[in-house]
């Protein structure tokens, strides 16, 4: 049941990827949102605000650095916190959980390399999100190299995996 709830939340989160986000002026930002950032992250720097329409509803996002970590916070239109994403080093995850995640990756991939680790707090649901480069066996028993986004809960239990679509790096002439 918990997993289904998390999956629904993740689906909603993925949908928001396709929403359009634009830079927002400070005057457009709800006070509640700026107060929260000031209080919770007093040492923040490089603060930027964005606004986006998700299913015709206005949402705000802020990105900043604090204590050498990169943060992305999402808020609703009146400044209620919806999601926190923090980029961190894989090594900072507690040893037991790290081992559990590594075991899952070892059992499901022939080779893997963790490219990015994020702690996600999605309306109180705590997750880890990893971007990995990995090789795995396909159903046809051939090997396939790819880039994946993979989610675990904070106990190190697998939640969801998605393959990242590779795009051509654009250049003219």
């Amino acid at each position, binding site marked *: 049941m918990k997993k289904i709830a998390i999956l629904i939340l993740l689906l909603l989160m993925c949908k928001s990827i396709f929403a*359009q*986000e*634009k*830079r927002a002026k400070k005057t457009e930002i709800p006070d509640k949102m700026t107060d929260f950032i000031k209080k919770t992250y007093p040492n923040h720097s490089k603060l930027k605000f*964005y606004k*986006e329409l998700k299913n015709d509803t206005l949402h705000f996002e802020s*990105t900043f650095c604090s204590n050498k970590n990169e943060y992305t916070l999402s808020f609703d239109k009146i400044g209620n916190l919806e999601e926190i994403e923090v980029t961190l080093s894989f090594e900072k995850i507690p040893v037991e959980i790290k081992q559990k995640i590594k075991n899952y990756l070892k059992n499901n991939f022939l080779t893997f390399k963790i490219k990015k680790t994020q702690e996600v707090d999605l309306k109180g649901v705590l997750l880890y999100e990893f971007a990995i*480069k990995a090789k795995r066996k396909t159903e046809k028993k051939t090997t396939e190299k*790819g*880039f994946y986004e993979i989610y675990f809960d904070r106990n190190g239990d697998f939640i969801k*995996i*998605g*393959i*990242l679509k*590779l*795009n*051509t*790096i*654009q*250049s*003219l*002439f």
Partner: protein
Amino acid sequence: MKKIAFLMFLSVFLSEIKAQNLTFYGVLPAISQTGRITERIDYNFFVSTTIDMFSQTVNNQAFPARDLQLYIQPSIIYKFSPNLNTSFSYTYQRNNPLSDDYANEHRLWQQVIFGHNAQKLRFTHRVRFEERFIENRVTNMYPLATRLRYQFAANMPLQGKTLDKNEFYLNTYNEFYFSLTGIKNATYSENWSYLGLGYNFGKMGRLEMGYLLQFSVRNMQKDIRMFNLVQTTWITNFSFSLKKKKKE
């Protein structure tokens, strides 16, 4: 003030006569279509033409306004990762395509392109090695010449962290051309600088317009040719496959 302006004009005018440098003004319309072949392999089809818009006579030599170059470049791209691609191509170029003094060029090239992000900017570094077979209309031969190019580019969305539909972006690059073997006027033989403003129409692709300065060494005396161009590029990215993507 008038005297200074006159002296500046005179010095530019005199250096032009002495050096026989040439300056042209024109337009460069281009189309670039990228599509998927497999998860890892894409194709790109790029076509452009370079048009000199104004007739001029320099040192009794006439340079009529005309189409100077037709460029057709299909290529195959292998995507190692989101930040590393390689590609190869057979490219056809025809100089003065609509005139009797045309010259064909058949070109093979291989390239590596590396991309990285810094804040909102996306930087790319592109190294391309070319084997050029340029037609000599006198001998009717296609002697081989090789060239190495390095392009450094930056791309920045202007409305938000990522480029979404109905948003503007900036694109700029500088490309250095080094002629290595074969007939050449100089080793550092060309330099292209570009700054463009683009708009993302979504499914219809992106339309980009900008200023391109092509600087090239035109003879063994190291005289230069400056080509000031307004480049307009329609960039599309779609696949013809009707297969639905398998989701996990």
